[in-house]
């Protein structure tokens, strides 16, 4: 990532000035307001609340016996949680959980339909339904993960799970280092739907991430 320090600062300054000029002109012409762009950026920054799946992950991290039950029979482990009835897989769907370890990484896709465990993870991200993404994730998962900013070591085996109408998969991500002392509720807050699909790691907090203080992800 040191590459960008080789970048010509004049080019950078010109881009910044141009972006500023375009926005100012659009505001002046009444095409957008001074709030418009900030609002769009804020949309991407806004985090969605914790999901039921995140609560399962947090409990599994805190309670090894629960984790064992979750991996063995997810539906009955989910029934232990105080989720509303519709959230516990009462629609006849079977939930299976794939555990990430230091040597195995799991990725969930659905090549046939949109079999997403939405009761646990929330509504499916649009890209989960995208045929190009699904086909590529099945064919070249390592490359697709890299496009998500997820660079896996070659020694890590990638397993791709195809959800079907009968079986809905989700991923039990690895617990981030340094989170051992956190409460179950706090842990649930940091688990994202992307992590439970296997396209992202769970991170302690945005501030503790990354090497570049100027870079912001949202």
């Amino acid at each position, binding site marked *: 990532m040191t590459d960008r320090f080789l970048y010509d600062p004049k080019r950078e300054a010109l881009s910044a*000035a141009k972006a500023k000029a375009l926005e100012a002109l*659009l505001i002046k012409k009444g095409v957008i307001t001074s709030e418009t*762009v900030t609002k769009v950026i804020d949309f991407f920054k806004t985090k969605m609340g914790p999901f039921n799946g995140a609560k399962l992950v947090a409990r599994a991290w805190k309670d090894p016996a629960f984790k064992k039950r979750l991996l063995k029979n997810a539906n009955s482990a989910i029934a232990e949680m105080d989720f509303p009835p519709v959230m516990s897989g009462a629609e006849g769907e079977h939930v299976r959980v794939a555990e990430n370890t230091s040597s195995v990484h799991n990725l969930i896709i659905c090549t046939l339909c949109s079999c997403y465990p939405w009761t646990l993870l929330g509504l499916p991200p*649009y890209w989960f339904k995208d045929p190009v993404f699904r086909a590529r994730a099945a064919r070249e998962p390592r490359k697709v993960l890299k496009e998500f900013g997820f660079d896996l070591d070659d020694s890590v085996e990638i397993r791709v799970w195809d959800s079907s109408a009968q079986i809905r998969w989700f991923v039990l991500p690895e617990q981030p280092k340094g989170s051992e002392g956190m409460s179950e509720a706090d842990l649930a807050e940091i688990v994202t739907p992307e992590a439970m699909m296997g396209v*992202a790691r769970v991170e302690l907090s945005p501030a503790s991430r990354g090497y570049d203080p100027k870079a912001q*992800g949202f």
Partner: protein
Amino acid sequence: MQTKFEHYATTSMLGAPDSPPRCNAKLLFHHEWEARAFGMALALSRDGFFEWEDFRQALIASIAEWEKEHGVDRVNPEWDYYERWLLALERVLKAEALITTEEIQAALAKEP
């Protein structure tokens, strides 16, 4: 299913060569202007000033031009995704007659 336009727009690029840089699944910006350029294109398309697909085609074209000039056989530190994005945005704004070249030049001339 309800889908926010913002969600649709960014994810429609996944798996395609014009997909924005990401870090751990999140969109990645190194400078404020990149986020501003990103937000402008999304807001204008969402509000109907141009089709998202038209912007994407302009972006794909601006990326292809760069690749043709610089080649794609090595990692090039000169590559700047959002510079291509900004160029695509400028072209679409001109094509839709929302902004003229003269206006941009006049605005840039005022910058210190």
